[in-house]
């Protein structure tokens, strides 16, 4: 993008976040412009003749017709480089910490600090030397960005197709503005490289190719890992009415998912929720390294009363940052809470443009925008001459009005995502959390990922299938109980009900705020399934020989199953063997009692 002579336009009309301007001959679509005397940032979203429609990223109160519009010649972009982690940005990447220093605790208008700190020095370790040939995506060297991300790769910009390093600095401390290398691209074109790059948020960063997803994104949430797993590079939707725990789920995943980098987008949600993340994440420790989780997290906060156009941009800002880390070869997980608020922003702006509305007033392009967004997820081989793989997993919360899943945002999302975690209001009201409905949810990765699980836990898929089957049977039996009462059930059926109840309460229910239960590693998860399955299969033999379910249920070791989730991960293996032993003894003593 070259800087040509830029001509100022004139504001013609102001309607909320939308501004109409004239005399905009040389403007390009999605170009960033500065609106009015306060120079607030906007983006061109429609061009008609020499007039343009601009969505403005801040409150337009006080802007009047006749004020100038200044083109910038740049597309709306984000800054990429070391210093992103551990930060909180608004929807157009303004660092909220710096804004706080500049304007106090209320966000004032027209302040645009740099997204990345300019004076901070980073320790750069080059891995290339003068004379090396490089192509787009090649890594020039590393910077230690945070304790949880030791190797932040400084890469050759995707637009440099081919070149030779003509200069590279020694290992040492540099700011992101300082030149660290020169690349000779031929034809007397020498590009100076520093550690900061810019990328337009609406354009996906290029990759070499997409590859298949076969690794699970381990979340530490039992119902997800076992029954409805998501792959690294996969897409999932969490729809649910208010109070069903979408946000708690998203927080749980942001905390525990085994990704290298987490991008968390608070899109049109509550301010206090962001405050909670900011307060809790520095205290929470990564279960693998023991370091504070905030060190791998980037927060984008455009809460519900912040400007609506910036809310629309926020998910692209987050996605572009996620792609940047993916290009280094990392696994990134992106959470968007909530995509419905983003869709509403689209709807509001579309309404101001007086576009022909589609379903429920949403613009006709809603579903293609949603599909485009989720398409930026995936596992791929990234640019660069070495073979590197990275992934972006996207988990989007959806807030359907009236918890009615037939509305357009939920439906358009379900068409593109492969995992569906349906949050259920009635489960939430029973305080069954996570309130994922096990009958309506699904994961299309389940079969592929079972192959991976089978390598470590041979009968993983057998157990999970058994669980699903029992839960399904329970549903049918409950129907019978509703019609004719519990007396109509046989003892075997009562045992199935009991087993299903144990699966629900003692296994699927997981306490997000209990230190021992919040994160359940795969081993504990597996042993819990084994214990429950053992209980059922052994009890079934007893019931077949005439022993009542209530007698089995009152055994101390069986009662203990109810508290097993509170045994910490590291103690669980020992606990498993001891409880298994006691179960064995208790159950066989019952069997012996019958014989005697």
């Amino acid at each position, binding site marked *: 993008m070259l800087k040509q002579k830029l001509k100022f336009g004139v504001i013609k009309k102001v309607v909320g976040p939308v501004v109409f301007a004239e005399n905009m001959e040389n403007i390009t679509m999605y170009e960033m412009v500065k609106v009015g005397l306060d120079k607030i940032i906007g983006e061109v979203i429609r061009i008609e003749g020499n007039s343009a429609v601009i969505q403005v990223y801040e409150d337009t109160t006080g802007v*009047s*017709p006749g004020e100038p519009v200044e083109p910038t010649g740049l597309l709306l972009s984000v800054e990429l480089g070391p210093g992103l982690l551990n930060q909180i940005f608004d929807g157009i990447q303004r660092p909220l910490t710096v804004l706080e220093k500049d304007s106090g605790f209320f966000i004032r208008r027209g302040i645009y600090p740099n997204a990345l700190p300019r004076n901070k020095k980073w320790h750069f370790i080059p891995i290339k030397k003068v004379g090396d040939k490089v192509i787009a995506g090649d890594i020039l060297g590393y910077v230690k960005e945070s304790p949880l991300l030791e190797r932040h790769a400084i890469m050759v910009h995707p637009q440099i197709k081919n070149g030779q390093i003509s200069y590279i600095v020694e290992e040492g401390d540099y700011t992101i503005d300082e030149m660290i290398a020169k690349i000779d691209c031929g034809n007397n074109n020498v590009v100076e490289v520093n550690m900061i790059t810019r990328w337009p948020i609406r354009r996906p960063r290029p990759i070499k190719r997409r590859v298949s997803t076969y690794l699970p994104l381990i979340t530490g949430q039992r119902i997800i890992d076992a029954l409805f797993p998501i792959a690294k590079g996969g897409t999932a939707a969490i729809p649910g009415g208010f109070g069903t725990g979408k946000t708690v789920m998203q927080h749980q995943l942001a905390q525990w998912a085994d990704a290298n980098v987490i991008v968390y987008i608070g899109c049109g949600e509550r301010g206090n929720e962001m405050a909670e993340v900011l307060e809790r994440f520095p205290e929470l420790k990564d279960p693998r390294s023991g370091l504070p989780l905030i060190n791998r997290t980037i927060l984008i906060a455009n809460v519900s*009363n912040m400007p*609506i156009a910036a809310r629309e941009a926020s998910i692209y800002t987050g996605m572009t940052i996620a792609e940047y880390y993916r290009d280094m070869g990392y696994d990134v997980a992106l959470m968007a809470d909530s995509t419905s608020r983003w869709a509403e922003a689209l709807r509001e702006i579309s309404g101001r443009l007086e576009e022909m509305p589609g379903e429920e*007033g949403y613009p006709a392009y809603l579903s293609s925008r949603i599909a485009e967004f989720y398409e930026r997820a995936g596992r791929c081989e990234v640019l660069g001459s070495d073979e590197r793989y990275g992934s972006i997993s996207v988990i989007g919360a959806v807030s359907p009005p009236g918890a009615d899943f037939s509305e357009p945002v939920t439906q358009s999302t379900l068409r593109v995502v492969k995992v569906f975690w349906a949050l259920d209001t009635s489960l939430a009201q029973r*305080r069954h959390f996570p309130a994922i409905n096990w009958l309506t949810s699904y994961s299309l990765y389940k079969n592929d990922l079972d192959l991976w699980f089978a390598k470590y836990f041979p009968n993983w898929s057998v157990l999970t299938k058994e669980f699903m089957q029992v839960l399904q049977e329970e549903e049918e039996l409950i129907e019978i109980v509703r019609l004719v009462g519990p007396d109509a059930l046989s003892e075997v059926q009562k045992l199935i009900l009991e087993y299903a109840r144990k699966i629900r309460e003692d296994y699927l229910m997981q306490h997000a705020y209990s230190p021992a239960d919040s994160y359940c590693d795969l081993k504990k998860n597996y042993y819990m399934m084994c214990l429950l399955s053992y209980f059922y299969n052994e009890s079934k033999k007893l019931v077949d020989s005439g022993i009542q379910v209530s007698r089995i249920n009152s055994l101390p070791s069986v009662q203990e199953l*109810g508290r097993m989730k509170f045994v910490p991960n590291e103690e669980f293996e020992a606990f498993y063997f001891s409880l298994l032993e006691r179960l064995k003894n208790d159950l066989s003593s019952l069997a012996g009692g019958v014989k005697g």
Partner: protein
Amino acid sequence: MTIKSIVAREFKTVSGISGPLLFVQGTKNVAYGEYVEIVAQDGSVRHGQVLETSFEMAVVQVFEGTGGLSREHTIVRFTGEPLRFAVSTDVIGRMFNGSGKVIDGGPPIIPKEKLDVNGSPINPKSRAYPTDFIQTGISAIDGMNTLSRGQKLPLFSGNGLPHNEIAAQIARQAKVRKTEEKFLLIFAALGITVDEARFFINSFEESGALSRSVLFINLAQDPAIERILTPRLALTTAEYLAFEEDYHVLVIITDMTNYCEALREISAAREEVPGRRGYPGYMYTDLASIYERTGRVIGKLGSITQMPILTMPNDDITHPIPDLTGYITEGQIIVDRALHRRGIYPPIDVLPSLSRLMKEAIGQNKTREDHRELSDQLYYMYAEGRSLRELVAVIGEEALTERDHMYLRAADRFEREFVSQGRYEERSIEQTLDIGWNILSSFPESELKRISLNTIQKYHPSKRSKVS
């Protein structure tokens, strides 16, 4: 917000009037959101705000309504300023109408600051997460859906239910224990009846709360569009008193349903594409601009806690008004018709009620260490009892087991002893929790699965009586 042109400009070029809107022609440099004064033929002044502005025309919403305005004789004065409200600590103990005029017969307010009524969003980075327990003295709230300072917790109610009594009781009793901090009540009435307003004012007067409250009263007979303004005046005042003067402010707004109706009226007059049930598509964002003006800020002593009341049309919680509210607020307290019919006061249904900030507001040093486990167990017990009640309705009591009967009885006791209390009965959190324990003591310990053995040892009534 900054508005550059400080010069007021007058126009007599009204080209059209539609519902609450005035269309003024030839207004070249009118700013978006500018505050407008409208002088009618009889000389009376109304006020309004610019909703849309272009070279040719400005659209102005008139808060007092457009009745009696004519094309020829109306003067529209653009002030070059956003709509501001004059605040100082003088407002405490005073009463205003829905557009901020003093109506208690007292002297005008000597302003310390004039603040833009639309406020600015609080930087999420600057927010302090709410953790201070507010004791309302009502067990169903304190015990099961705890309120904390800086929270926005609405009452979802229906027509004819005693939400006003509950709100008044909370206003009388709410306190943060063991503190002597400056507490203040701001009450905004939107389109309620004279009787309802009188009830609130009397109730505040009785308890002595009136001298430490600020009242904004828009009655049912007052202009509907003014209701867009009233909550913003209340919250501007709240922000000033909380963040400049260190008060802990509780804001009660009733009835938000009337606010949304006014919003719909304007949207319809502008011929916007309607969202669900005719409400504008931006209602979520608009409601957020009210509800989100709540909270605590790092480094400031004061706080704003918000308790909006809304009546759900036809008791339908999926109606856009409660639905969108529930997505913004930090939980909801549900006032239930069935409980009310059975004579239970307060008829709060704890099962669908929720306080999202409860987990951080309770426990040791805040309420009591057994609070979390006890409320979980009570919740489980009551949910179980309620679902058994439904079962009984289908298959009769005979088919139930002894365990089932135990739960049925406990659920009844829970409603009669725990939820139910007097309108002037103020229970301490310890009393609330002990009532809960009493009900649970009818269960064998093996049924109390959500309570750890330690906690049972320490707090179960049977253990405690042995010790003492």
